[in-house]
């Protein structure tokens, strides 16, 4: 009896320690929009707010700096702007506010819904030129990841990737110089 209880206790502790939540990874959130993108000759600066860091004992989240990194890499890969810069005097500025990240507590298929408010400003004219709420969702299955905490992270990353992709597609339609 004592041996069985010890084994159960060890397993319970192992489950607690190994099933730690991991933050959503920037590389997995990078979007690759399909089709031809408009190419602006100007540079853009990117800022993100509203995200949350991940606590190991809670759910996987999306941190501001990780989403910003994915957004910057996605813009660079797409060629939508000539350069992504940290210079505050850059021609364009893109602000992304993560207003909602709706996650399930448990489940085999985990669907995460993400809503981001994007605002594109002409920093030189101090003029807002585009604003849009982008709502996307992604479902991760047991085939994507066996552990629930990892499945949630995959769902986060998918929702973020689709969100960035849709935002880039919309900005491409603006035909900015």
């Amino acid at each position, binding site marked *: 009896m004592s041996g069985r209880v*010890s084994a159960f206790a060890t397993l319970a*502790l192992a489950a607690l320690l190994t099933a730690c939540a991991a933050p959503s990874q920037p590389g997995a959130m990078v979007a690759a929009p399909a089709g031809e993108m408009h190419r602006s000759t100007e540079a853009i600066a990117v800022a993100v*707010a509203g995200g949350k860091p991940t606590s190991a004992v809670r759910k996987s989240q999306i941190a501001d700096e990780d989403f910003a990194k994915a957004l910057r890499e996605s813009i660079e890969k797409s060629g939508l702007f000539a350069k992504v810069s940290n210079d505050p005097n850059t021609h364009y500025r893109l602000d992304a506010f993560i207003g*909602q990240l709706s996650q399930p507590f448990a489940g085999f298929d985990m669907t995460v819904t993400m809503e981001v408010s994007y605002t594109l400003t002409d920093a030189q004219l101090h003029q807002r030129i585009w604003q849009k709420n982008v709502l996307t969702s992604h479902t991760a299955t047991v085939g994507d990841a066996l552990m629930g905490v990892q499945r949630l992270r995959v769902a986060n990353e998918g929702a973020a990737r689709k969100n960035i992709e849709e935002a880039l597609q919309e900005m491409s339609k603006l035909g900015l110089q």
Partner: protein
Amino acid sequence: MTRWSRWLLCSAFAVLVTGCANLQSARSPGTDLTGLHTMYVVKSPPDDRGIEKLISDRLNTMGYQSSYGSSDTSPQPVDAVITYEDKWWWDITMYMIELRVQLRDGSSRSILASAQSYRPSLQRKSPEGMVEEVTNELFRKEAK
């Protein structure tokens, strides 16, 4: 059962059952909520517990003019629109484990601010208590 096994079992059980309550908010950079007076709370489609009315009543108590309804748009123009998501869990009885609220611009619907409260079973609050906690957090800097 050895003392070590007992300690492990109790630790594992405590972590699984209690967790930590969490209250968070975020605001879009440069957003000023002081100019907001009229609000409309949009009923969340899955909600059949009347949380939209609780939120609207709470906003009225806080000094705002608030109304609520099932329609996605307010019958009258408003300064801000509130959307929310309530999640429930079962532990002996059903309780609200999480409430997320988004404050949106009345015309563009862009999210200006958001707040959320997560309370596991042993730290549970009534729906009214959750609503009060989240709305206080949402307007913390503008307390009327």
